[in-house]
């Protein structure tokens, strides 16, 4: 269930396929809470809470993307809002042109916009992959603080570009009037949409699980733990990291597309550097380098946002205090606290 078996040396040599350790049980419990919570809320007619669960799932998905780069690849990207926002804008712009029945981006030989989720998702994933490739190529030549600042700066570049590009709302953002469609499903139904998102989260989690256990995962782990050893073994660390960075951006971009559809709106707030910080916070709150960490982190974050946000307008003040306490005193995040083990590394 967890990747820790395949990553740490103390685990059994063969993956324990049908046996769950404590971390595995916690992960399963979190997923169950989401499903049961959303279903019960739906039956009780509380669409607000179904959407809250969808929000948790989508933000968790964004975190799963970042975790691949940050937790497993050791690349502290402070610019994942770029992919989250780009994914969102793909969904928004596609719907915008589908609504207008005009070609995508207004460029005549491009196909018309689309309100179908599958092509929108694929476009979001492809474009985010390209963007991550460009940013990764430039940023991975550096390390440490440089990498953090450069990824932040490039994300900021995208942010300012979106603000000053008037066609798609600029600072005001772009509404999605009708939620994008998927085959015959009623995506406007909150529970249907929840399960769509949940299915994608599960798919991303199992994809990452396979990936990290594979040869590529072994190389990525080594690139994080000891790049000198990896190179001495005959594998260039940089391409390995770059591929992981690209996949990471793709997953976060997919989450962005879903987020735009959830809110019926895409705006520059999805590209804001606070968003990059939030996605990072989610990964850290859950526990860095744990596959299900972002799920725990997103649930905690959205719950705090809802609960504290209901108590006070200044809830981020308390979020700051909680985050500070976690960084200074509880470095393993939720998983570290619950499973009684400190963070990997």
């Amino acid at each position: 269930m967890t990747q820790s078996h395949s990553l740490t040396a103390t685990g059994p040599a063969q993956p324990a396929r049908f046996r769950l350790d404590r971390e595995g049980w916690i992960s399963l419990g979190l997923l169950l809470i989401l499903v049961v919570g959303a279903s019960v809320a739906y039956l009780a007619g509380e669409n607000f809470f179904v959407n809250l669960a969808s929000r948790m799932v989508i933000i968790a998905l964004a975190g799963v993307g970042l975790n691949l780069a940050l937790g497993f690849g050791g690349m502290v990207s402070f610019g994942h809002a770029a992919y989250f926002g780009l994914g969102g804008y793909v969904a928004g712009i596609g719907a915008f042109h589908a609504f207008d029945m005009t070609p995508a981006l207004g460029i005549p030989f491009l196909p018309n916009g689309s309100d179908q989720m599958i092509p929108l998702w694929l476009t979001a994933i492809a474009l985010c992959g390209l963007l991550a490739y460009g940013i990764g190529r430039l940023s991975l030549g550096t390390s440490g603080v440089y990498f953090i600042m450069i990824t932040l700066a490039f994300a900021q570049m995208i942010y300012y570009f979106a603000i000053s590009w008037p066609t798609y709302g600029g600072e005001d953002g772009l509404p999605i009037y009708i939620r994008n469609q998927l085959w015959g499903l009623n995506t406007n139904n909150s529970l249907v949409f929840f399960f769509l998102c949940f299915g994608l989260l599960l798919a991303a989690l199992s994809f990452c699980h396979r990936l990290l256990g594979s040869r590529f995962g072994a190389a990525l782990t080594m690139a994080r733990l000891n790049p000198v050893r990896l190179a001495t073994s005959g594998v260039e660390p940089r391409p390995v990291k770059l591929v992981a960075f690209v996949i990471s951006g793709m997953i976060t971009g997919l989450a962005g597309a879903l987020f735009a559809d959830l809110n019926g709106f895409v705006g520059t707030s999805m590209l804001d550097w606070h968003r990059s910080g939030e996605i990072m916070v989610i990964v850290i709150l859950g526990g860095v380098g744990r596959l299900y960490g972002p799920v725990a982190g997103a649930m905690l974050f959205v719950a705090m946002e809802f609960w504290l946000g209901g108590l006070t307008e200044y809830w981020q003040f308390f979020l700051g205090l909680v985050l500070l306490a976690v960084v200074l005193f509880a470095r393993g995040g939720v998983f570290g606290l619950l499973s009684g083990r400190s963070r990997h590394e």
Partner: protein
Amino acid sequence: MTLSLLFEQLLNGLQLGTMLFLMASGLTLVFGVMGLINLAHGSFYMTGAFVTAWVTGTTGNFWVGLLAGTLAAAAVGALVEFAVIRRLYHRDHLDQVLATFALILIFSEGTRWLYGSSPLWLNVPDSLAGSVILPFGVEYPLYRLAIIGMGVLIAIGLYLLISRTRLGMRIRAGENDREMIGALGVDISTLYTLVFALGAGLAGLAGATIGALQSVQVGMGEPVLILAFVVIVIGGIGSIKGALVGALLVGVVDTLGRVLLPDLFKLFMEASAASGVGAAIASMLIYILMAIILIFKPNGLFAVKH
């Protein structure tokens, strides 16, 4: 585009560069000496502006306000260093980023709590109001000119501080060898607090002076902080000289790009599209500059060895 307009914009670029230098020099000092990446540096900028606006409003004297704002930022910096930052020196950069990100949330929301969301206003002092006539017939605001002058003085002051004083000698020693300076018997934690407070004070001064040109509001430090990051990435993290060159480069390129690019695009596009595309590209220009410099100099123009 007339020569006088170009000259005026060049001065505006220098003025922006001056502000960026005040921010970037603190960031780069703190990184060079303590190895710490501090996202909350923009909060000191905001603190300086708020305290200056508040004290100026209460006393009616801008200069008292400016002094109070700068000192308050330095004091808050020292306090934050003492309470939080010094626990982070031995942590990895990820922990530093997160903890200082948390500090931003605390500062921004705390300030909003205290002062509300509507901006405060701070006026240019009477003695610096009005304009002067410069070469090329440019009528330029005296206050902005004074900012540039202040920046030059501070750059010289920092240079003298670091190259001529005991504190500067210790800073340089700390940059080269952290173990060594402890072995020499220098009280390292006091040194760190001083350096951090110095950086915070410079940021506060920048916020206070800019506060008179723009509105004083929550979050005002963040765009400047990110520009300052671009500056020190270009200049080379840890290098004061790099911060100076990077700040002027970013200030001038950003300002001129916003003026010149839309006109440039008008040469081969129709006017409304040109101004849109020009503005969009201009907003990305310094990041493109950063990318190009990184391709050739991955550690910045004045790379510091660590």
